């Protein structure tokens, strides 16, 4: 029994897939952007000298890193309206992925902060810089360079996580692929093309990040 590949139905709807991919990227960029801000604040909180800052940051990471993303998405879309916060499908997904990525990125950044030699802070203090200036001008740039490789993997993972938005009918790549699949019954072709789009996009993303890494390398 043979299965003949026939991509014509997929190519006919290829624009829908590309549109879906575009939305996936947009979801990822927004969520990762917000997640980075959350992650930075949490990472500095977790490494702070004051226990009053460390505890809430630790609690956040525990809660959001240990809840499956799909559950967060469903809570964000179905539960928040009950509490009076009604967001669009897209916004509620961005909220869920932002909170979730914040927890993961916090751990990446925290690892980077622990690797910054203590002496650099003291050198900054010794020339009269304030703690804030030291964080912005010395610790942050050094930490970001150190975490770039780990950050790349995290970004790619989070980009792929946007496929969970299909669960609440956000028309991103996975949702569009499922629609084509249902309409055309070309199961193999549809998911081959959709996977190829994910793999291609992630590869480009990885290559870009590696170039940034090489440019910012401290060895140069």
């Amino acid at each position, binding site marked *: 029994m043979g299965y003949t590949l026939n991509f014509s139905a997929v190519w006919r709807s290829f624009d829908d897939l590309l549109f879906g991919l575009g939305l996936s990227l947009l979801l990822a960029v927004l969520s990762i952007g917000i997640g980075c801000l959350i992650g930075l604040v949490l990472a500095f909180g977790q490494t702070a000298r004051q226990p009053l800052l460390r505890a809430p940051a630790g609690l956040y990471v525990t809660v959001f890193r240990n809840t499956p993303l799909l559950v967060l998405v469903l809570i964000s879309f179905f539960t928040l309206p009950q509490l009076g916060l009604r967001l669009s499908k897209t916004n509620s997904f961005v909220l869920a992925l932002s909170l979730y990525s914040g927890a993961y990125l916090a751990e990446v950044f925290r690892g980077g902060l622990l690797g910054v030699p203590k*002496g650099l802070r003291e*050198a*900054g203090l*010794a020339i*009269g*810089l304030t703690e804030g200036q030291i964080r912005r001008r010395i610790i942050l740039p050094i930490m970001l360079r150190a975490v770039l490789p780990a950050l790349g993997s995290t970004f790619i993972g989070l980009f792929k996580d946007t496929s969970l938005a299909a669960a609440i009918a956000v028309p991103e790549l996975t949702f569009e692929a499922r629609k084509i699949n249902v309409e055309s019954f070309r199961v193999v072709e549809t998911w081959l093309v959709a996977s190829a789009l994910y793999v291609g996009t992630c590869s480009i993303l990885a290559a870009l990040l590696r170039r940034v890494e090489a440019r910012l390398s401290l060895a140069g």
Partner: protein
Amino acid sequence: MSAPLLEIRDLHKSFGSVEVLKGVDCTVQAGEVISIIGSSGSGKTTMLRCVNMLEDFEGGSIRIDGEEIGYLTDGGRRRRKPEREIARQRALTGMAFQQFNLFPHMTALENVMLGLTLVKKMPADAARATAEGWLDRVGLLNRKDHRPSKLSGGQLQRVAIARAIAMSPRLMLFDEVTSALDPELVAEVLQVITDLARDGMTMLIVTHEMRFAFDVSNRVIFMNQGRIGEEGDPKTMFANPSTERLAEFLKNSRFS
């Protein structure tokens, strides 16, 4: 005698239950070059770090040009000064560290410029000119665009000294600046310090280089178990130590 540049009174400092400084008194006049010697754990580095508030201290006072460093007392209660005020006071002193602590993401020039632009609020071109001037003084103008990863240990320490001195501090603190260097790189760093001493810069130098301490300082302080064990001019002290502890220390440091 003029008012002292640095005045340390009854300085006490503990790490947990271990008392590291047990009442140190020390007065430094402008232009003096003072070497602080002593075994590991005698408190010499800690004393230096208290002077620019890299360490908090529980008792006593430190004054630079009569201004109390780090703490204020009101209504009989001693409080740490606000962070901004301490940052300003730290800029009164410059410090060079054993591990150099250059900022690895900046070139030599950027390392020296950072404090000038952020703390001294100099415009970029003036800061650049000042920084280049000091890099020239330490013989590294031709390395100004190099990152720390491309510099030798001796060069790193010279940039670090330029970074500190460019801030025109009232007092320079050197914390075992040659201890992490390969032996053949020590001389170039000591030469830079000797030049600065000749220019009249006031200095406190924590060092294990006895020959250097002997040659460069007007006065030597021997720290012993958290107190000043002995102090005086190096020639007398090294020739005729008046305490057994110093005699033993000098013997073990093989000073000849």
